[in-house]
């Protein structure tokens, strides 16, 4: 047993060392540092190195606008017809939901809850629904539900079709993958305008945008599920003489059902998260609109009350769909009982609902919730927040200042510009800078000694980044650095993706804004990743911590992006720190989860081997488990970046600068081209990070002799 582990671990480092110390590698890294030094020296004499040279700019935004005009002229009539159809369906469903006596709707939800998870679902759901009724948000909530009920089936159908197509037609796999990446990374604000122009004003554009955003997880899960169908099953189907269609319906899809159900669950959550954001357009009196307009008015009490409705809805829909998925997965035995007894929920449910309906005819208060029974504690909340901020602002200001002066400002404009009497309390002299570089050098040496060249290089680059700042870095140095990292992790393929992405950002003239987004996202991701990994390790070695963290993680992931901002700006106000905080909280979850998962799944043989060699628990963790879990941890990093960027695009609402603000601005000016270019810039940051991380993970896994990860 010990042999297995021993054979595994040294292999990793020796393989890497060989790769890193290769002749070419050394030359390339040396060249990179020479280039960085040179551009830093000449940047004040050559302003073209800070922003892209203006004569090289291409009017990509104009081209996009021309394309949209052409496209709209051609397809608008068709799309407007579709739009009218969707609006009809949506309005009907909304009318039914709003027209149904509330007591009937509440009971229906509770019966479904009991079906999905028994009494432990029923009671919290009842409380949540009671909250919605008492705060007086019932009618707009029904509108939001209507939006979700129309958007989700559309996403599910579209996702099924695309997932099957990607699986069956190999030529389509790659184009579909790229589209999914774009659908998930281009911020929704960027495509609201074209959708508005093509589909017309009203709730439909929001619906369409929601479908675009909510479909990818379905596609990915369908594909993943189909890929996992055992070969033996397919072969037996073929032997039985199934036609391709029969194969799909009676063998492959049923076998992929668990994955598909997971996809449905994720799709519902995405849809709910986006429905709120799509409310920017208006046209439907839904909860999203209320949250948004209260937030714009700084009516935080109202905003929190309406935001809680979204949170409760999200939790109900998440738990219910997960519970139903679980029931679907556990096979049922055909029962011989008479029909009503075979489906107890259905029959009791119908009886209950009919009874409730009749009762509501007799007692009107059970149909329309009486206004006199509502209680809207917004004022008390406002007072409480005002009191809280006035009591604690000394502390909150200190936290804010610490992160602003210690992390964000250095990453933005560099340590050399940050330190002044106002921020750090003194004017920096040569001694201060010498001390800083000595510290970096010590950190690099330590990294080299304990973890190898890779980390040492990483620390060097971070040290430079912290000193010079994203907005002050000459672009050739930045581009070259990312390209070399891409080459190192994923070969020429990834390096060329990096160069292509950088070229796009440069010629479209969004370099400056991209750097601002990069700085905020990287600062927030850094915090989320370090903290998340630490928590993940702790959760992996301590079951109690794990049990505490799990429901917190679940809740963070179910709360729609947008609702996050509310408490943060109440306490920390507008600006980059609030943006960072929102991003870090939202993006920390995958860092925790993947780390815990990775460490817990380290093969027991490796652990036993380490124990047999007499490693202490700490040694075992640092030298065996962490290195082996590193690929998983890095996948968590990848997810952290993706979620972080999703949140970044929303932080435009609280005054962050960068690409997200350009996208939001373009939305206001109805300028599709501008918004799309900036949106693509954000998408490219996500895609480049993704390719680099995956390239690294794959090379690690190859080195460890693990299989490559599958999936879209």
């Amino acid at each position: 047993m010990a042999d297995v582990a021993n054979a595994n671990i040294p292999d990793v480092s020796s393989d890497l060392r060989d790769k890193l110390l290769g002749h070419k590698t050394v030359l390339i890294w040396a060249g990179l540092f020479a280039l960085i030094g040179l551009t830093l020296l000449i940047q004040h004499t050559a302003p073209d190195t800070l922003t892209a040279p203006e004569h090289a700019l291409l009017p990509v935004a104009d081209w996009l606008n021309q394309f949209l005009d052409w496209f709209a002229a051609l397809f608008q009539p068709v799309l407007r017809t579709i739009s009218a159809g969707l609006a009809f369906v949506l309005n009907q469903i909304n009318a039914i939901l709003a027209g149904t006596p509330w007591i009937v709707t509440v009971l229906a939800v509770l019966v479904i809850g009991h079906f999905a998870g028994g009494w432990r679902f029923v009671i919290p759901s009842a409380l949540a629904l009671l909250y919605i009724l008492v705060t007086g948000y019932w009618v707009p909530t029904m509108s939001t539900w209507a939006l979700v009920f129309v958007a989700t089936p559309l996403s599910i159908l579209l996702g099924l079709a695309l997932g099957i197509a990607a699986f069956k037609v190999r030529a389509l796999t790659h184009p579909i993958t790229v589209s999914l990446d774009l659908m998930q990374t281009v911020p929704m604000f960027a495509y609201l305008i074209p959708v508005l122009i093509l589909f017309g004003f009203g709730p439909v554009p929001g619906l369409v945008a929601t479908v675009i955003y909510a479909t990818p997880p379905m596609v990915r899960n369908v594909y993943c599920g189909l890929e996992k169908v055992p070969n033996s099953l397919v072969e037996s189907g073929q032997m039985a003489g199934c036609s391709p269609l029969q194969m799909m319906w009676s063998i492959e899809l049923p076998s992929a059902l668990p994955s598909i159900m997971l996809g449905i669950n994720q799709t519902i959550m995405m849809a709910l998260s986006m429905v709120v954001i799509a409310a920017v357009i208006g046209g439907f009196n839904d909860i999203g609109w209320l949250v948004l307009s209260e937030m714009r008015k700084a009516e935080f009490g109202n905003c929190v009350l309406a935001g809680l409705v979204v949170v409760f809805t999200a939790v109900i829909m998440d738990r219910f769909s997960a519970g139903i998925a679980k029931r679907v997965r556990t096979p049922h035995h055909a029962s011989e009982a008479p029909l009503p007894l075979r489906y107890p929920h259905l029959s009791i449910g119908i009886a209950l609902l009919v009874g409730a309906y009749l009762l509501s005819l007799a007692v009107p208060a059970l149909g329309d919730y009486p206004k006199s029974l509502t209680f809207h504690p917004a004022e008390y909340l406002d007072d409480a927040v005002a009191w809280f901020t006035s009591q604690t602002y000394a502390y909150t200001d200190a936290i804010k200042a610490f992160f602003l002066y210690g992390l964000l400002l250095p990453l933005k404009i560099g340590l050399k510009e940050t330190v002044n009497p106002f921020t750090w309390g003194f004017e920096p002299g040569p001694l201060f800078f010498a001390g800083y570089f000595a510290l970096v050098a010590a950190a690099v040496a330590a990294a080299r000694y304990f973890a190898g060249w890779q980390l040492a290089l990483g620390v060097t680059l971070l040290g430079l980044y912290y000193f010079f700042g994203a907005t002050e870095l000459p672009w050739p140095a930045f581009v070259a650095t990312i390209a070399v990292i891409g080459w190192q992790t994923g070969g020429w393929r990834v390096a060329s993706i990096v160069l292509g992405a950088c070229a796009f950002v440069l010629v479209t003239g969004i370099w400056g804004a991209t750097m601002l987004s990069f700085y905020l996202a990287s600062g927030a991701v850094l915090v989320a990743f370090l903290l998340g990994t630490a928590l993940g390790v702790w959760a992996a070695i301590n079951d109690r911590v794990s049990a505490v963290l799990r429901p917190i993680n679940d809740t963070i992931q179910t709360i729609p992006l947008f609702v996050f901002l509310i408490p943060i700006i109440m306490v920390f106000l507008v600006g980059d720190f609030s943006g960072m905080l929102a991003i870090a909280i939202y993006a920390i979850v995958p860092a925790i989860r993947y780390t815990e998962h990775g460490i817990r799944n380290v093969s027991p043989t490796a652990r036993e081997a380490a124990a047999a060699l007499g490693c202490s628990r700490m040694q075992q963790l640092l030298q065996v488990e962490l290195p082996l879990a590193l690929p998983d941890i890095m996948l968590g990093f990848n997810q952290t970046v993706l979620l972080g960027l999703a949140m970044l695009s929303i932080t435009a609402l609280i005054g962050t600068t960068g690409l997200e603000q350009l996208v939001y601005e373009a939305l206001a000016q109805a300028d599709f081209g501008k918004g799309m270019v900036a949106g693509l810039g954000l998408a490219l940051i996500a895609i480049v990070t993704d390719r680099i991380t995956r390239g690294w993970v794959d090379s690690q896994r190859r080195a460890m002799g693990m299989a490559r990860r599958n999936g879209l």
Partner: protein
Amino acid sequence: MPILKRLNMLLLTGVLLVGAAAAGTSTGTAAEIKQEPESKDTIKLAMNEWTGQHITTKIAGEVLKKMGYNVEYVTAGYIPQVQGIMDGDITATLEVWEHTIEGNYDKAVDSKKAVGLGDTGITTKEGWIYPSYVKEQCPELPDWKALKNPDCAKLFATADTYPKARLIDYPTDWAPDNVERIKALGLDIVAKPSGSEGSSVAELKSAITRKKPVLIMFYSPHWIFAKYDIDWVELPKSEPACYDDPKWGPNPDATHDCGWPQGWVRKLGWAGTEKKWPRAYRFLEAYKIDNKLQEDLLLKIDFEGEDLDKAVAEWMDANPDVWKAWVAKADAS
């Protein structure tokens, strides 16, 4: 400000007099106000994101209802509504502010799918505001030259603008032009967009709780002026020459070295409105409120917490002459 208020009083008295006169001359009675509508289709009025606009819209809508029309209030984003009006999905929007979506307004009117319905009647003021207590630390205020004094500018500084002052600017989507003005006026100020109006108000509230200086780009009419002690920075008075002639104003080499001109607030409607609901169209054209009306109701709703519907209904009951005059004017034209 007092002058403005007096002007408003005069205006209001004028409106009342005209209203009374109109009610007197035409044999206008309640019976005539309600008529068979030309079309039973619903007139859709856009409800945007701020309370002032809700008041303006709700009053017009309630009068239209009394005239016999079916009216619906559609929530609509400030920019998306223009597309809705061009397509006829929204019948009219009643507060389009100059300096914000002027460009979209012009584009919509030029497309002939939308028509301008004239002024809404409210006058706006835009500029830089600060809590009155800042004057204790910087006595030269409200004169803008006070901000030239580094000690005053430093009061408004934050970490990332130090030693320059920070101005919390309009959200970028409102297309502010402060960067140009700051440069033209030669001030050490950095303009930071707030992201949303709520964020600006939050900054103001928080600064006032802590008695800290803060400089914000803002507009009136708005309820904050009723609730807090706030002053405007007095910038050189705006004149057309300020924008055309660099020589005008304190900076001989730049335009934009002045405050903002008073902007218009207009109504915009779907081009098909006149044909479909001629009487409603004439009413929407005739409809004109003033600042006092809006401010009074703003105070009731945003400050005293009264319900919008209730406040508007009360106003309608108390001021039949005013709104009947609009209808009479519409019927006379």
